[in-house]
């Protein structure tokens, strides 16, 4: 289905910390179309600063009590001018929201397990993916790393879906409810990959899904390749349009033995086969 552009009213803007918020938008037509891993292009409506929209993974598809889709949320981390404006929005404000856009994750079904690897704001695409995987009864683990325990969010949400949590913090701090391993999320991931082997069907035991800072994505893709597990990576690049028009968001991709080509992450991604991405 083609994307739609909605002047979406802010339903809520829940500040999770001094940098993170979950911005809920009344955009049912976007929500209905969204598949896990897709994104929206967003900016506060009616202003020229910021001029361009910014890309955000759809974090949640929102539903009312009757189960009808009422909108979407995005996980916003205050980093620059645009994300600061989004962090400061209040209910009733209006946001231009174009989407859903891009290639979604390819889900896996049992007996293959799903291992989601999130770094910081890279948690964003995994709430919808987790719901989809839980619906298919795919055994799912979330490897989730943040700078501090205060920046680990939505743990109850994932637990209620039956997802196993493996948490890491760079400072070694623990969440109120959960033990956290000190260090990077790739530590426990590698330990798990070492024991992964193959599933009962003879295929790879797990599909690794990754989203987070670029060095983490590279490390995850390399680890998955080393232990022969497939890997889907959601990349984030500076993006102008989200529709393939501007050629800003390119990433180097190699198919087989071909030389690398710069392809647009908005329409050929943001989800790529980790083995095909070329790391600088």
């Amino acid at each position, binding site marked *: 289905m*083609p*994307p739609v*552009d909605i002047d979406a009213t802010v339903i809520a803007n829940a500040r999770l910390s001094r940098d993170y918020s979950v911005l809920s938008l009344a955009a049912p037509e976007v929500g209905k179309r969204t598949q896990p891993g897709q994104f929206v292009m967003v*900016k506060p409506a009616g202003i*020229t*600063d*910021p*001029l*361009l*929209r910014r890309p955000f993974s759809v974090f949640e598809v929102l539903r009312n009590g009757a189960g009808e889709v009422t909108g979407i949320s995005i996980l916003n981390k205050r980093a620059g001018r*645009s994300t600061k404006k989004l962090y400061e929005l209040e209910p009733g404000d209006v946001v*231009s929201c*174009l989407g859903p856009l891009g290639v979604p994750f390819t889900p896996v079904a049992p007996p293959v397990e799903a291992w989601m690897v999130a770094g910081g704001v890279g948690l964003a695409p995994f709430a919808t993916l987790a719901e989809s995987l839980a619906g298919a009864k795919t055994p799912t683990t979330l490897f989730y790393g943040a700078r501090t325990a205060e920046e680990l969010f939505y743990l109850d949400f994932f637990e209620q879906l039956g997802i196993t949590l493996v948490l890491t913090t760079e400072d070694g701090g623990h969440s109120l409810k959960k033990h956290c391993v000190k260090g990077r999320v790739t530590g426990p991931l590698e330990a798990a990959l070492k024991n992964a082997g193959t599933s009962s069907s003879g295929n790879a035991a797990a599909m690794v899904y990754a989203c987070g800072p670029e060095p983490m994505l590279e490390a995850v893709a390399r680890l998955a390749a080393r232990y022969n597990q497939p890997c889907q990576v959601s990349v984030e*690049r*500076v993006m*102008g*349009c989200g*529709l*393939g*028009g*501007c*050629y*800003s*968001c*390119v*990433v180097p991709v190699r198919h087989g033995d071909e030389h690398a*080509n*710069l392809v647009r992450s908005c*329409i050929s991604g943001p989800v790529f086969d980790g083995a095909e991405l070329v790391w600088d």
Partner: protein
Amino acid sequence: MAPDLSVSLGSLTLPNPLIAASGCFGYGLEYEQVVDLSMLGGVVSKGLFMKERQGHPPPRIVETPAGMINAIGLQGIGVHRFVKEKLPLLNKAGARTFVNVCGTTIDEYVEVCKVLSQADGVAAIELNISCPNIKEGGIQFGCSLTGTYDVVSAVKKATHLPIIPKLTPNVTDVASFARAAEDAGADAVSLVNTFLAMAIDVETRRPKITNVLGGLSGPAIRPIAVRMVWECYQLVKIPIIGMGGITDARDAIEFMLAGATAVQIGTQNFVDPFVWSKVLDGLKDYMTRHNVAKISDLIGTFDPTPPKAVHA
């Protein structure tokens, strides 16, 4: 009676004056899912050389106040793949396709134009002699009056298609370049390409885009672009396609009053891919309010009488 939005660029008649700008609309087909391409006056392709080009490493764009700087570096599939893979689909979609032609030498411009002359469904050639983002070719012609004259004359001899040189604003007197293009036989000129610009990350003291320099576009440049269209309109007789930061119908009309026969919309596609129907509606509304039956009657009707003094 329905307002007449049609305009003529020499032998080429368009149903309306709105054209998608090169580099801001992919090959047009990317936007087919959100825009009916036949509704546009025309679609200008991304710049094409003979061969494929990878362009510059990212980051390639940075946002600036009411604008953006880009240095994509003319990533493109080359003219042969365009003719084979894109043009038939553009024709099927009912697009009037303008092809933006690049070259590192006059010979390359000529060769690309010859390939396009053989193809079915090219409405016109926009000659890119103004991209600020590549070292060789292009702008070296656009920044020299004799270079502009020579490349336009050479391609005019090589093709029957209308030739529309796209001019750079990065010169002292853009109108003299429009005149050089006209003297060489250009059917129209389009202006402006982007303004050479740069942005520095003060925290790291490094450039915000890999190429360091890039081209500034968006509403920030509009008043300068309007001025340049007005200057060219006073000097040349061939039609002018105006562009630079157009976001709505009022902006489009401003360019037409300054002398543009048609206008291109570029950066605003990124902001709002649904801009086209909004601008078309706005043009019709303006024509109704101002009792204008034919939009071409607006061209160059800017009245330089000083505005009435307004007291606060």
